[in-house]
């Protein structure tokens, strides 16, 4: 419960933080709510912690796109009106589903995304919203599409010497709405499965849909079969089973694989239903 020894220093700028990451033993710390628990268990033992908490990367800019600074807390995301206004309710709902009040106040979206925990809530919303992860490196900034970002458990497209600086959310077409549904592990509160669906409804028909699924397997993924079924007006949960079948699904002695495959399909179906109801003008 006591971390191994480490050095600590505050980053003075994004460039300074990026430069400090040249040391392979260094790690940035944002909210510390994933990193510090791992350090206390000595599962992570960075030689130097570079605190980026003071950098001006916090805040939500609502323009043609919604740009969320990487240090924005889950709590700020959960409360931001910009998402619901744009039909991106799922993004705020993912943030609201994270941990408890303290965790949401301290934990950051950038930290969550960079950590790449396959059981985290945020990826579902990011995938449904087709977000881009903006990263800063020695050579300047670049953007990575969310579909290419999550690559495996605790493994992302982020380079060794790169920092997440912002998450960019394009605004969906008029008539869009989204929803996030999850079933939480009663112990950890992390999702056993979380699904976010973003739909566009025109003329009473779903004309576009993206579904992001998290918690079920090593990599958050798009439920393409469920998307096709939604567009075809077919039963979504049935189609979702096909998405799950292709996945290497987590299972343990508490929540076995068969059960998790089953609830994943149920949750995907519920997310789609709620998103459609919202898009059709229901307040849900």
């Amino acid at each position, binding site marked *: *419960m*006591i971390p*191994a*020894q480490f050095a600590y220093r505050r980053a003075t700028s994004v460039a300074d933080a990026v430069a400090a990451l040249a040391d392979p033993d260094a790690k940035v710390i944002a909210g510390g709510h994933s990193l510090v628990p791992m350090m206390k*268990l*000595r599962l992570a033992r960075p030689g130097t912690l570079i605190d980026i908490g003071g950098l001006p990367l916090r805040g939500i800019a609502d323009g043609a796109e919604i740009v969320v600074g990487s240090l924005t807390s889950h709590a700020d995301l959960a409360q931001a009106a910009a998402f619901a206004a744009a039909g991106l309710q799922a993004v705020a709902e993912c943030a609201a589903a994270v941990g408890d009040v303290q965790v949401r106040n301290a934990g950051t979206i950038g930290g969550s995304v960079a950590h790449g925990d396959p059981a985290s809530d945020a990826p579902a919303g990011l995938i449904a919203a087709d977000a881009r992860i903006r990263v800063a490196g020695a050579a300047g900034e670049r953007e990575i599409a969310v579909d290419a970002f999550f690559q495996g458990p605790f493994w992302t497209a982020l380079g060794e010497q790169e920092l997440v600086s912002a998450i960019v959310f394009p605004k969906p077409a008029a008539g869009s709405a989204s929803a996030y549904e999850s*079933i939480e*592990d*009663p*112990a*950890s509160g*992390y999702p056993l499965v979380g699904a976010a669906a973003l739909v566009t409804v025109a003329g009473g028909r779903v004309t576009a849909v993206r579904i992001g699924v998290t918690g079920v397997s090593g990599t958050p993924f798009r439920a393409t079969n469920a998307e096709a079924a939604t567009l075809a007006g077919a039963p979504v949960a049935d189609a979702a089973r096909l998405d799950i079948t292709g996945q290497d699904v987590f299972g*343990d*002695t*508490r*929540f*076995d694989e068969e*059960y998790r495959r*089953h*609830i994943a399909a*149920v949750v995907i179906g519920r997310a789609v239903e709620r998103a459609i109801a919202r898009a059709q003008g229901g307040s849900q």
Partner: protein
Amino acid sequence: MSIVGTDRPRIDADDKLRGATRYLGDLKPHGLLHGRLVLAMDAHATINRVIKDAALAIPGVVAVLTAEDLPTAMEGPMRQFEPLARGEIVFQGQPVALVLAETEAAAEDGVEAVIVETTSHAAVLDLEAAIKPDSPLARIRQIGGEMEGSAAMHVEAAGEGEGAPAPAAAAAEPVSANAKGPHRQQHGDATAALAGSEAVVKGTFRTSWVHQTYMEPQGALAIPEVDGSVTIHSSTQGAFYVRGMVAKLYGVDVSTVRVVGAPLGGAFGGKFNLIDPLVMGAALAVGRPVKLQLTRSEDFASGMPASACILELELGGTKATGLTAFRSRILLDQGAYGDWAMDGAVPVMIGGPYRWSAWDSLSYGVTTNRFGTGAYRGPGGPQVVFALEQLVDELANKLGVDPLELRLKSAAVEGDTGVDGDPWAPVAGREVIERTMQHPLYKKRGSLPANEGIGVAAGVWMGARFPSAATCRVDQDGGITVVTGAVDMSGTNTSFAAIAADTFGVPIESVRISYADTATAPHAPPSGGSGVTYSVGQSIRLAVEDAKEQLLDFASDQMDVAASDLEVVDGMVRPVGSPDRGKSVAHFAEQVTGFVATAPPIEGRGRFAPGNPSPSVACHVAHVRIDPATGEVETLDYAVIQDVGKALNPGLVRGQLQGGAVQSIGWALYEELQHDEYGQLLTGSFMQYAVPRADRVPNVDVDYIEVPSAIGPFGAKGIAEAAVMAGTGAMANAVAAAVGSRIRELPMTSPRVWRAANSR
């Protein structure tokens, strides 16, 4: 004005809210060494070598102790007598070595550097397999010696009286040395009585290992004194208990050990002498103060949780007279150490609060390579209730009678023969059940939407009958100071204050409850077994009465009024009927505490041995909703109806009963310490071990009744453990009602409920 019976905040609440309470973790004596444990990786192994060099080379590390380094004077088959593994590792998480260092961080570095070389053996984990004669043994080296005092305390509190040992013929089943028993209770011809019953039901039930999950992990601090004695500060429920046990282990005189109970950050039965033997031995070995406070993961890995059981139960009944007979066979997983195992008591407890005409009830305690058994609130209760109360419901269903009607017909009353062969003490099962029948939540049972269910169950806890003593002195300012050696657990001091204030006739503000350690306090039992208020409360009442008598004798001389014509009201001593002639208690107290006095100071003494129990019966009513698509269970509403004898402080009673409901929900839906097939703990933190958090707990309505005890102070009964004796049954019956089929395994997790709901 009467204080007893009114709501008052706990007297320790203010300090706790302000963070002023000094817990064990806050104590940092000069020269302190911090301990951290090297825990066993194997579930079962022989230790070949412990390599300490690398750890000792770390700056700040002072010593690495193994069993040979502790100056123990004896051994015995108890965890308390084996603070570090002696040659054989018997469970994963067992302490193997203790690293002592100047800082906690250095100690933790040291732990990483210790190498334990072992030869692994088969881990014995499966209860049915473990008792087969050809099973490998969970303990290769069997340690002789008797179980001491510990398990006996709760076994007795749970209701096993003198109970004759099982007749040799009962051991028909050939068993391995992993099995302890059979413990058997028999009366009449159970086979014939079951055959003659109108309906018979049976089933096999499984329960899980459950951790006490107190907020403050286990810990203790031992300080060697210059005179060779040792002072132990401990987060323990029983200071005198610890003193006796560690003195025995290290072969020293009890007078050389002083145990000071630290404010408890939760205990629930789990805090008895777990860390004390370790720090005591370490302090003796190195001659410096040693503190060890477990981390949460260490507490999960190496604590003493509650046993899992497999229960086979068959019971019968008739419509006209209720329950008739039962037969049971219980395997209780005592783990590697049976310190607090209830294998001797469960054959009695499974009879519940009922009258039976015949029974054949047996159990085995089974040694396995998991933890060791600790006490946890109402030990054995949640397990037996899960089986018994489900079957009672099924029987009611089969007989076509209301489930409470069946229980009412069958409720034991004073004088009925208990399963242990002793007659029942006065018990208010009927009153509690009748009250439950009137509860609005129970009445709602018939009119529920789909997927909802309401379940009911009853339970009883006999209560400990510990002897105790206390003193009461009158201070120079007219206040009174009660001295007790009982550790304040869940507000007992607050009730003591009310007892003292009312007994003496002084305002509550004039009462001081002084906790004293084992060097100075009158003898006190451990705070457990629901026996503290019951026994110590009465000792305090007697001590206060004695002091009051002394005061009145003195006042009688001074006022020239017969003592029998004097009363004390609101801190004033006055002739009955002439309140205006009163003089303050302080007026007299000053005279006997000055430099020169004509009479000695006032010091009352109270001693009490309850003799008989005053069992408390409780019914729980649970209302749940299940989601058949996912198996999730939501507890919508809950009620606890319990006979408490006398609510000395209704607020605290409500707290206890609500806490019992919450822990019941935990047992029922979430809590399970799981091991894999190698005996590796899979649920070693709150990331995997689920407890009912606030957002999963409904409103808990408390509806207690007061059928006074003739023994406890002001009629009070021990209430804390009865409050968990019905919960698993009520929850299981509620889930069964919602699902439409029964789940016979705890906890009733969402996958289990989903499968039950979809296999109808």
